[in-house]
């Protein structure tokens, strides 16, 4: 592998999250190193998506803190997270259904827009120039994801697999340093999965993006991730290299339901 795994970039300490009486996450700590692919696995309802939601501030944990590049956040919010270079895709695709592929991806460039409302209304100077610059950048990502043929299609009309790809494209348009992927391969057939794996590896390889990935397909997870966290019922039951996790008896019992 050409890339080099660096220092810890994102560190979660003792995170607990509850909705009313329901404990979604209990005292979870793990870290993510720069440039690595970190997988979170676990059975349904283990709290994986909640974990991502905590990282980018959609949910506010009752306890614990998030340390991002040495900066402590007891409370993250989505906007801060986006500014700090965290972007994500969604389990149940959260694209803007009324907009076409280009516009969806252009929204990902939002934080980089400098022109103001008046300039935009007049389509004048900086506003016009920026539109063209960002369009060019978005087109690069469109090329990378091989979705040139659908660039002007409203995303609501696209098949599921392509929507997932556009979702990824929108996240990439933010040029994130950390990319959170929530089940990017769910519901895909073998070829689509292979494509998606290739994209994930390429993103990690070419752009050096750190990736936190939730996935159910064990084969995929074990193949592409550097380290794996295992959650079950909101608790961490395993953490380590794929092979270590595979051998962990607790993990085996959680997945197979076997008793010790």
């Amino acid at each position, binding site marked *: 592998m050409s890339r080099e795994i660096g220092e810890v970039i994102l560190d979660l300490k003792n995170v607990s999250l509850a909705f009313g009486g329901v404990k979604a996450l209990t005292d979870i700590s793990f870290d993510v190193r720069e440039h690595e692919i970190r997988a979170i696995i676990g059975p349904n309802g283990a709290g994986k*998506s909640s974990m991502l*939601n905590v990282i980018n501030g*959609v949910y506010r944990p009752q306890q614990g803190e998030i340390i991002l590049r040495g900066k402590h956040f007891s409370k993250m919010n989505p906007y801060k997270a986006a500014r700090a270079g965290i972007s994500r895709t*969604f*389990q*149940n695709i*959260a694209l803007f259904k009324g907009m076409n592929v280009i516009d969806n991806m252009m929204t990902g460039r939002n934080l980089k827009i400098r022109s103001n409302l008046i300039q935009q209304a007049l389509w004048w100077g900086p506003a016009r120039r920026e539109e063209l610059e960002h369009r060019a950048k978005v087109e690069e990502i469109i090329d990378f994801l091989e979705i040139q043929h659908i660039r002007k299609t409203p995303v609501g009309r696209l098949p599921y697999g392509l929507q997932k790809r556009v979702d990824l494209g929108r996240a990439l348009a933010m040029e994130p340093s950390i990319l959170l992927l929530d089940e990017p391969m769910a519901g895909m057939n073998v070829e689509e999965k292979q494509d998606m794996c290739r994209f994930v590896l390429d993103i990690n390889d070419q752009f050096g993006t750190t990736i936190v990935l939730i996935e159910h397909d064990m084969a995929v997870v074990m193949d592409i991730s550097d380290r794996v966290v295992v959650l079950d019922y909101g608790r961490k039951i395993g953490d380590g290299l794929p092979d270590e996790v595979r051998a962990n008896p607790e993990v085996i019992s959680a997945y197979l339901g076997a008793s010790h």
Partner: protein
Amino acid sequence: MGFFIETLIGGLMAGMLYSLVALGFVLIYKASGVFNFAQGAMLLFAALAMARFSAWIPEWLGIDSLWLANVIAFFIAGALMYLVAWLIERLVLRPLVNQEGATLLMATLGIAYVLEGLGTSIFGTAIYKIDVGMPKEPVLILEGIFEGGLLINKEDFVAALIAAVLVALLTLFFQKTVTGRALRAVADDHQAAQSIGIPLNHIWVIVWFVAGVVALVAGVIWGSKLGVQFSLATVALRGLPVVILGGLTSIPGAIIGGLIIGVGEKLSEVYLGPMVGGGIEIWFAYQLALVFLLFRPQGLFGEKIIDRV
């Protein structure tokens, strides 16, 4: 003290009447996911039918009894509301299955126009009376406890009673009957309800008919209070803050909301009004609802909206 309680009771009873109007909104929203802007028009239409038929029937049939004429007129008006419900389902809702809420809302605006136009062209545009023998004279009660007693409007009292009974019946209907359960399923998801064999079209006719009957009852009560004329349709505007205060999906919400709005409105008008020049009832109701919404955006009893991503 006596005056305060009098205002309070007046507010509670007015609130019951608002609840009755609000109930029409809630019923349709709960059972078909449509925010029915035509509720006011339905109320007007029903009241017009009732007023006119109760005047025509004695002429046509030569009945002398006002009571009998009213009963017959009520049933004819009810039948008309069934026809309206059937037509709405046939012409509006059926082509719009599974459309967005905003589209359906716009459709009901259209229905409102058609009903208003139809109602006034069939039944005329003059001011008509509905006389169902509601007691008009106010009474004084509890003279022993409060100085001068409490002045209670009997008409309001009877109206509030009718509203309460209707609400109880509807709650039973929704919670305890098979049809009620089917209605709730439809509100949740048109397609899913259809796929498990709930006859969507039939259900819609039922629910719009029930809403029509509620509109009829409300129309009779309000009509006998205010007279039946075009502006009766705006009574629905009094119901709107009630609906959002109580929550769009909750029948108890419509009741409690109605009472809160009724009381708030009357108290504000009496105690706050003179300071700012009066006439604040209607916007105060909306502001009051808005304040509640800021704390509970889904209304007091509405289903909580949870964002899942």
